[in-house]
């Protein structure tokens, strides 16, 4: 009996999560496949036949992918720079990345409404200089959603990469350079391959975060550029179409798992080529 006492320590939390999180989730997913007559995939056929929903699915995937790539392209050099600074400065950079991450997503999305709005900072500036006469519509489109995603998840990318980059042995780079590799080649052959685990973690976090984010596309995307999360909320709470909402929820989970798996296997292939 005493041998199994650790199961007793796990039990309360396990039962709580199983009953309140896992079970409802399983019921939503299985519910999307059943009607009174039995098991069916008709709702999924309707979903994928409906241009409205396929457009939204593809848009969500496209915007999340762009956000991930942009975050990686801008995050990597930044993280690399941070990993090379001394420990005090590094702490400061980490703190300034953590701060926005712990700030409310409503506040963070709102700040871009202030910047990109019709009478926002960018439009005001451009009108004052005289480049434009009429305010540009920078808000409520796919562009503003991507900006919002990148802004929201850039800290995650930077922090995942800093964690990996700062653990790379500096002597390895020095060794490569002393053996004749150029700075760039040493970076590509030593630093970059070793940083791939951080890049994967960061990319998965940015992609899945963007794919399922609600606040940012709701505030910055408006009604014309809906994404999976906003359309799911609309289905459930405005149209009371719970069946479609369950289908969207399931699609969201499946896409999240499949794409995370793809990123992982792609990275593993990169890894084995080394």
């Amino acid at each position, binding site marked *: 009996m005493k041998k199994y006492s650790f199961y007793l320590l796990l039990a309360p939390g396990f039962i709580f999560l199983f009953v309140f999180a896992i079970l409802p989730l399983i*019921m939503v997913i299985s519910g999307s496949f059943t009607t009174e007559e039995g098991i069916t995939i008709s709702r999924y056929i309707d979903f994928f036949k409906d241009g409205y929903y396929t457009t939204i699915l593809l848009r969500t995937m496209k915007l999340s992918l762009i956000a991930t790539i942009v975050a990686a392209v801008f995050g990597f050099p930044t993280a690399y720079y941070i990993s090379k600074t001394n420990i005090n400065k590094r702490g400061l950079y980490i703190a300034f990345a953590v701060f926005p991450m*712990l700030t409310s997503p409503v506040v963070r999305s709102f700040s871009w409404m*202030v910047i990109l709005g019709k009478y926002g900072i960018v439009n005001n500036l451009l009108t004052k200089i005289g480049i434009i006469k009429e305010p540009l519509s920078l808000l409520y489109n796919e562009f503003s959603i991507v900006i919002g995603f990148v802004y929201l998840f850039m800290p995650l990318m930077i922090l995942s990469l800093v964690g990996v980059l700062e653990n790379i042995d500096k002597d390895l780079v020095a060794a490569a350079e002393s053996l004749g590799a150029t700075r760039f080649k040493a970076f590509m052959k030593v630093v970059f391959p070793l940083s791939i685990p951080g890049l994967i973690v960061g990319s998965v976090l940015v992609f899945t975060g963007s794919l399922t984010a609600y606040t940012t596309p709701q505030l910055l995307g408006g009604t014309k550029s809906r994404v999976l999360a906003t359309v799911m909320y609309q289905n459930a709470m405005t149209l009371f179409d719970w069946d479609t909402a369950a289908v969207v929820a399931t699609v969201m989970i499946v896409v999240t798992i499949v794409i995370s798996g793809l990123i992982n296997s792609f990275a593993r292939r990169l890894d084995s080529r080394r």
Partner: protein
Amino acid sequence: MHKTSKGLKIFAFLVYFFLLAPLVIIVFASFGPDKSLTFPPRGFSLKWMANIFKVEMFRKTFLISIKISVIGTLIALVLGIPAAYALSRYNFRGKSFFNGIFLSPALIPGIVLGFSLLKYLVIYFKLPIYTSLLIGHVIIIIPYIIRVISSSLSNFDYSIEEASMSLGANKVKTFFTVVLPNIRSGVIAAFILAFINSFNNVPVSLFLTGPGLSTLPIQMLIYVEYNFDPTIAALSVILMAMTAVLMFIIEKTLGLSYFAK
């Protein structure tokens, strides 16, 4: 300094400008006197700061948010600490399965979780909406507790525990007098981190609020969709100040380097 690293430095500065400028703009704009948000502000006024306290809904939902997050975090600690202890102390069959279950709420999209809780807890099992909201927050908090506590337990020397037990203390007493005091800073950090993530949560709360019961982020979300005055900016400043204080506590307990791992 090397030429390439100078370019890199400017690049990093620009990325950080992108990360921080929007928040700085919010701070400045919140002190503007105008009815609509402008930057740079045309003057200085505390009018909008004062307005936060005049809007009844903000005051009310702020208190609800604090309450939900504090109670939710306490429940999650009670459920999470023993689990984190078992997961890092023992090796047993199904350990990775249990680990996966305890971290799974971090992988389930918040909006899907919120929807499934509404559908099954509120509508199917007819639980009160307040209870459901609290349960939802406990669920999303648990992974943070497990991660932070496990990370501080990984530095704990279990031979101290054995010493205590060989001196006659039983398992439970040892846990409360030896193990828990040793991971105290981890518990504080877990509390703060869980609190802040619960406090800021939108997607789960979104489905579990309604007339009479709302959280601050949901109320702010509704407000900014229809209003564009500096009240939200002023409220944001207060929330940022709160975040800064909580971050300071995390730095003193867990260390912010925890986030770069």
